[in-house]
């Protein structure tokens, strides 16, 4: 266990910027947006706008908020939406981390030092998988939580300044339900990401130019899929793109439908965690999702063996 925690610590030392600095900068970014900026949130119903393509800024919503239950319920969704930019950046960081993770030490020749320690290639690859699939998301989720608490604090101060009853308002802000929804969506994302993670790790273990290599392989796979099935978005795109992104609400996909469905049920009856988790939970019942995860595990085993071969020859 000590060995494994050291391997993960080593990843944190190496990728401190990706793991910690970027989420901290994003918190600052969200604070600035809430305080000064505007975000186009489209025509999502929970914000009181029913018109198509109407733009409302978070700052405006926060500024207009009263102590009523409706405002509090809107805030629950705003809190969830705050996570979207964080998760989009997280996805980029994860992809870039996986692509470089088994290449960088071969490129700077530090692999000879790492290989001189009693650490198996399996342990190395698994620690990198854990760091990419768990540590980066956890750091991101913590940053999202901090940003959410920051927004709550801004609203709370505003209510106090207006002389409104903050306790009545916060009785309807279900932050734990929002966090539960984030957790469930993350779980679906992590399982759906195994295919992508395995593919990127394999490219990183094999090539010294993994970005170009993975891109060319992806194109090749899509061409093969098209020649065999006449379509390009069923197998390869599902495993590498759809499974991590489309099967959950982490990146905003499906949120509009979820909000519209919930608004027809009336705001009083909305169960926030259920509304925001339904899509992710249903995706976990689909065979495609688990087939992708199993395929991802096979690719990870291949990555371990390719690394073993590359470091011995």
């Amino acid at each position, binding site marked *: 266990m000590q060995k494994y925690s050291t391997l993960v610590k080593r990843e944190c*030392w190496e990728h401190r910027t990706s793991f910690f600095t970027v989420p901290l900068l994003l918190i600052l970014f969200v604070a600035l947006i809430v305080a000064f900026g505007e975000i186009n949130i489209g025509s999502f119903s929970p914000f009181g706008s029913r018109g198509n393509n109407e733009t409302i800024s978070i700052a405006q919503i926060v500024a207009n908020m009263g102590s009523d239950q409706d405002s509090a319920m809107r805030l629950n969704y705003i809190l969830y939406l705050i996570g979207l930019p964080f998760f989009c950046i997280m996805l980029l960081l994860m992809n870039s981390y996986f692509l470089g993770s088994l290449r960088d030490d071969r490129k700077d020749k*530090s692999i000879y030092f790492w290989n001189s320690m009693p650490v198996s290639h399996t342990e190395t690859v698994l620690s990198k998988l854990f760091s990419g699939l768990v540590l980066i998301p956890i750091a991101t989720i913590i940053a999202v939580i901090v940003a959410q608490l920051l927004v709550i604090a801004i609203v709370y101060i505003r209510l106090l300044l207006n002389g409104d009853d903050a306790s009545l308002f916060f009785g309807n802000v279900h932050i734990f339900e929002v966090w539960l929804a984030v957790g469930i969506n993350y779980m679906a994302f992590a399982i759906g990401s195994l295919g992508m993670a395995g593919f990127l790790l394999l490219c990183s273990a094999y090539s010294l130019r993994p970005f170009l290599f993975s891109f060319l392989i992806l194109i090749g796979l899509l061409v093969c899929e098209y020649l065999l099935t006449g379509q390009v978005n069923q197998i390869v795109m599902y495993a590498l793109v759809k499974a991590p992104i489309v099967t959950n609400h982490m990146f905003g996909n499906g949120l509009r439908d979820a909000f519209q469905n919930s608004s027809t049920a009336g705001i009083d009856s909305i169960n926030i965690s259920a509304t925001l988790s339904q899509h992710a939970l249903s995706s976990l019942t689909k065979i495609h999702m688990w087939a992708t995860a199993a395929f991802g595990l096979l690719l990870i085993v291949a990555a371990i063996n390719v690394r073993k071969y590359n470091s011995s020859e």
Partner: protein
Amino acid sequence: MISLQNVHKNYGKHQVLKDISFNIEPGSIVGLLGPNGAGKTTLIRALLGLSQAQGNIEVLSMNPAHQRHKLLAEVSHVSDVAVLPGWLKAGQVVDYIEGVHPRFDRQKAMRLLEQTNVKMDKKVKQLSKGMVAQLHLSCILAIDVSLLILDEPTLGLDILYRKQFYQQLVTEFFDQQKTILISSHQIDELEHILSHAMFIKQGEVVLHQSMEEISDNFCSVTVNEAQSDLARKLQPIYEKPGLGTRGFIFEGKASPDIEALGAVVTPSISDIFTAIMQENK
């Protein structure tokens, strides 16, 4: 401790290790000596399971190819190309090895590092080449294992630290239960600590003897130019020109004919090395 039988290794059509067989017993310091490209690093990598080779290799009763990371828990190793990553801080190098190596003694490492100029909060890329080597070697010497394999460990170090390192190797690491296999180009500096020397030439072990055997099996005599022809008739394996003199190295015990030429001495390892490497070149 180390046993090799009929070990071969090819890179494509090029054979880098040719039918290598030898045993190394506990309590020995073996110098693995050979010119560039002789196969030293390939042999060391095969011993550690870092490279595949044909034949039987047994290190500490383990098969390196199949038990690499288990073996590396019992063996310390510094590779000539081992580069500590530049982004790692010196303190993190210590933390890392402590975390992954069950036999690492942190206190000993810190004690050894205190004798150097390495600052623990500095990144490796901020240290000089010599300091990086000091950091790496101090950490490696703090690992309590029975086998230490060093591949050009003092490359890039100045002579003061090289001498300090070889001294530390004997005082801090070596005892009668431990074994050191060390490859180096600095043969003269290494000679006084070796118990055995192994010469490798074009992938073949051409000499593997204890220092006592070498002393018994090689002799050297320096003669003036006038006696050179006489010396050559005794079939020396090496002839070294000097200022008005010629040094000759002979294989085997000094015969009366050789003794008649002048004072017979034991040649240095570097002279024997040069002699054997140039033989039938």
